[in-house]
């Protein structure tokens, strides 16, 4: 029985890399992608690069909260409390 996707070429294989990392490929597609990877160092390198990008993005630290920005937000909280206590008055 001929198997679908067994003749996966690099041009199509690279389009599966992200879904592969997401675990979103059907088993048939995943199997054919993995088979392609075993025989193709370029597509293995391509997948490794996409994976390293995902890893590095997850490690990126957000900037530091400045004192001014923090003070602004504390003001927001204070104004909210004043507004609410104002509402409570008759």
């Amino acid at each position, binding site marked *: 029985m001929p198997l679908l996707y067994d003749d996966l070429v690099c041009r199509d294989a690279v389009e599966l*890399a*992200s879904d592969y990392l997401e675990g979103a490929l059907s088993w048939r597609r995943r199997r054919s992608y993995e088979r392609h990877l075993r025989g193709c160092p370029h597509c293995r390198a391509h997948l*490794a*690069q996409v994976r*390293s990008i995902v890893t590095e993005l*997850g490690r990126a630290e957000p900037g530091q909260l400045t004192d001014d920005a*923090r003070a602004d937000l*504390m003001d*927001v909280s204070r104004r909210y409390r004043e507004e609410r206590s104002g509402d409570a008055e008759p």
Partner: protein
Amino acid sequence: MDDAELIARPRRGDEAAFGSLVTAHQPAMLRLAGALLTSRALAEEATQEAWVGMLRGLDRFEGRASLKTWLYAILVNRARTIAARERRTVPFDHTDDARAEDPARFAADGSWTQAPVPFTDEVGERLDHAPLVARLAPALDVLPPAQRIIVTLRDIEGLSSDDVCAMLEITPANQRVLLHRARAGLRRSIEASLKRDG
């Protein structure tokens, strides 16, 4: 302290509790708002409105999502309202079925004409941790907005596909396509910058 209590305390006027939430979440919220709105001033406005929304209890926290996901959902909502006001609405539907990788990289038989430019050389010195991070920031900036927003929520902020789909009201298939294009776009940008630097 559980998430519900972390939210209840600032609402009761506990300023220190509010301060702790701000310290823990504002930097990442500002980064996310920056991906949604690009202008720093608008991003700051969106985070302020999100905190007010959180204090007012505009959206009920029902414990189904984590505190972080819930805060981000409020923020995404505020940011999208601001984007609409500023006529900067980002369309998330993709109507073309273009490939994410450059077709010119492949021969007629579908194989690579030129291998991907390595991120590391034989001794692994060319692109270790810090330089890759340095190349990622400008690469993110040039992504189309919808792709930048999706990759920020998923890969930078670490939210689940389900949460992102719910926040942006898009289908899982749409989310996957945009994420794929974003990751491919980042890879291509980094490769191009490596080529430029020789």
